[in-house]
């Protein structure tokens, strides 16, 4: 009996010892690999249960804007039924063809736990709802700003948080050209128009100066700055701070010298804590950085061979006081790039094409809450919002495809 006990005890000690040796060896290998294959950067883990299911058989259409307000409530805007197939919106067809589903209202507010708080949006009295809404922003006074990139969208809307209309800047349908062969109206850009816009992609309001930075846009080729209360245009500029020029620059060529004008769309214009404006020149695969007055500071290219929609879709700043990191949504390559904001050096990426949690299809917009959690939305057939829980700074692989959890 005692011998059996000794044997079992020896087995325990032996196995434990073997595991301890394995642990040490693996630790050394991991550290050696870490020096070569990983980098210190923010770590994230996808939350597959955020948000909670929508009520009323609602589904999202192409989701083309996200912002997080001061209460960490997440706001998204999407194109609802206009981008849903009949298979997806059977309940709203006339007559209905099934029990499910229907497009949710365009503007949705979620609390931090992913519960739907309220929804609103769509045409109403006193304003022109965009043909194709695009981008959403909650300013320091709690107002909701919305752009639009439909054919005739040349204006911006401002609402209260509860969806009460407050203001419209610019008019819809200006700069209309002749009808095309299909009889549809065409529109020309006018990036020097002080009153109207050209298919606005995104708005960012600077709380310190009460100025709205407009990524203008899908038709115009400029960043415009407005007074936050009156909507009066104060200044605007094109690539490198040049006077914007609406001439067609032709298709993007990765081997050509950098374009001296933005290409459409100018997709974001976000202001950092140190008063630098980060502009997404989407199709040109570059971020250009400016002072608040529009003086060019620097630029950086990402996945420069990306054609089509381009690689630079939207940015979000990390939540540390210095905004050390910049998160770049790259919808062409279906990933989020993590950059050092001061150097624009790419540290790491996460995500890949796919439909499971943590993967992307055309990741379009990105925003961050006060705890550093990221939220992304996906356009085209992506049609969703995802949450990535911030897990602190640590060693991460430089190219992490599918964002599986590690511990």
């Amino acid at each position, binding site marked *: 009996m005692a011998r059996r006990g000794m044997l079992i005890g020896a087995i325990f000690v032996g196995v434990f010892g073997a595991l301890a040796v394995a642990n040490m060896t693996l630790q050394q290998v991991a550290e050696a690999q870490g020096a070569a294959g990983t980098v210190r950067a923010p770590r994230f883990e996808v939350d597959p249960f955020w948000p909670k299911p929508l009520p009323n058989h609602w589904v999202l259409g192409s989701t083309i804007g996200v912002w997080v307000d001061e209460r960490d409530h997440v706001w998204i805007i999407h194109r609802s039924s206009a981008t849903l197939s009949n298979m997806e919106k059977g309940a709203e067809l006339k007559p209905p063809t099934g029990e499910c589903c229907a497009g949710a209202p365009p503007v949705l507010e979620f609390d931090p736990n992913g519960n739907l708080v309220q929804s609103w949006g769509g045409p109403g009295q006193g304003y022109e709802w965009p043909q194709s809404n695009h981008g959403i922003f909650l300013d320091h006074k709690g107002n909701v700003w919305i752009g639009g990139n439909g054919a005739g969208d040349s204006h911006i809307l401002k609402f209260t948080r509860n969806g009460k209309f407050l203001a419209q800047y610019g008019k819809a349908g200006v700069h209309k050209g002749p009808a095309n062969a299909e009889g549809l109206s065409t529109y020309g850009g006018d990036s020097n128009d002080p009153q109207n816009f050209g298919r606005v992609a995104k708005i960012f309001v600077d709380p310190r100066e009460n100025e709205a930075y407009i990524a203008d846009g899908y038709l115009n080729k400029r960043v415009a700055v407005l007074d936050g209360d009156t909507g009066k245009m104060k200044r605007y500029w094109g690539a490198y701070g040049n006077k914007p020029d609406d001439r067609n620059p032709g298709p993007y060529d990765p081997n050509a010298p950098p374009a001296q004008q933005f290409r459409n769309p100018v997709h974001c214009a976000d202001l950092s804590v140190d008063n630098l404006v980060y502009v997404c020149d989407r199709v040109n695969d570059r971020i250009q950085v400016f002072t608040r007055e529009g003086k060019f500071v620097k630029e950086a290219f990402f996945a420069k061979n990306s054609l089509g929609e381009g690689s630079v879709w939207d940015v979000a700043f990390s939540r540390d006081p210095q905004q050390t990191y910049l998160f770049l949504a790259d919808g062409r390559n279906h990933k989020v790039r993590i950059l050092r904001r001061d150097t624009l050096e790419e540290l790491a990426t996460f995500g890949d094409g796919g439909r499971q949690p943590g993967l992307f299809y055309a990741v379009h917009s990105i925003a961050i809450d006060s705890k550093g959690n990221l939220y992304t939305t996906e356009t085209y057939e992506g049609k969703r919002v995802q949450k990535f829980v911030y897990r602190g700074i640590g060693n991460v692989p430089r190219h992490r495809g599918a964002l*599986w*959890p590690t511990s």
Partner: protein
Amino acid sequence: MKALFATAFAIGLLIAAPARTMAHEIPNAIVVQSFLKPDGQTLTFLVRVPLSAIRDVDVPQRGPGYLDLSRADDALRTGAIVWIAREVALYEEGRRLADPRLVAARASLPSDRSFQSYETARAHFADPRLPDDIDLYWEQGLLDIWLEYGIQSDQSRLAINPGLRPLAQRVTIGLQLLFPDGRERAFQLHDDPGLVQLDPRWHQAAADFVRSGFNHILDGIDHLLFLLCLVIPIRRMRTLIAVITSFTVAHSVTLIASAYDLAPGALWFPPLVETLIATSIVYMALENIVGARVVRRWVITFAFGLVHGFGFSFALRDTLQFAGSHLLTALLSFNVGVELGQLLVLVIVVPALNLMFRYVVAERMGTIILSALVAHTAWHWMTDRGAQLLQFPWPAFDLLFVLSLVRWAMVMLALAAAVWVGRLLVRSLRQGAKPRAEAEV
């Protein structure tokens, strides 16, 4: 003439009306931020509440509903007194404090960050007021309030009954207590928490957590079913005590470890634990059905107790803030409460089972039927919770994952060794006791 008079009267009313009444729906959910700081014989209470929660107070507006700040001061002070000062009840050593003095009330932008700390919040009241012409839609503004209460001493123990439930359908109150010696304690209260001791004595904390543990075990149907499965085949006191003690020790270990942040923090961990809890019930029920030997049940009970302890920790997570400086006391008390709940269940269930097996159904058949019913329920829990767990992507099978596996294997091996040593000790004690027992006979 009458019409003319009526028109003139109506116009007069319109001109004289100073404001529009803020009669509106109760907000769905609001967050209230607050600080309490006793200093000498003054208790300062700083509160920030969304203006949308301040109802039935005439607040001047202009344009489409912008706050008319040039005329808003009286309304803000009235809102502060009616909805906050008169509703919040503060206690010093069990005695309710007299009504506070309203030092200041001001409007702020929703983006204002002053309430991130007591110092910045207090300094904010000295900041210039918002410009009168700012376009701030009134429902989106914040009301900042500075109240002062007279107290006997800044060393007194304080308690609060917030009374802010009427402000919204769901009210979350962030409260930070700043002690004179520099310590800080943060609370997150929901809706109507009742009287909250902000610096409880050890016996107050212990009583609260014993109650909490007792209620938790009685509310937790999965823990109760696990307990039922344990006792169906074991109704002799001595064996029962060994099994229950084993369960208690095990869940205490993981509960305390979790409270000290030693449990994994990954998102998949809670669903994993919930799935394992359901699995433990299925296992126990199946073991009862196949008639497995129950003399070693304390071993498997220990293993499952570790899992249930994590489950208890999820329930306890939001209430540990009420432990004050008595974290370990609170944890042990919670375990005591759990044990008392379990004892109550045993006191009811064991005689009931004895009666049932004596008069209603034969023991073996009864064991199979009861265990099958429990297994059926737990099976559904297991598959439902497992499905939720499977929503999480599997960890990548890389070096770090293997390293993590090795470390967990070391922990499990150490636990197994401890159990094995425990068994050896119990066996040697029993062998030592046998001759004496025989001698007594």
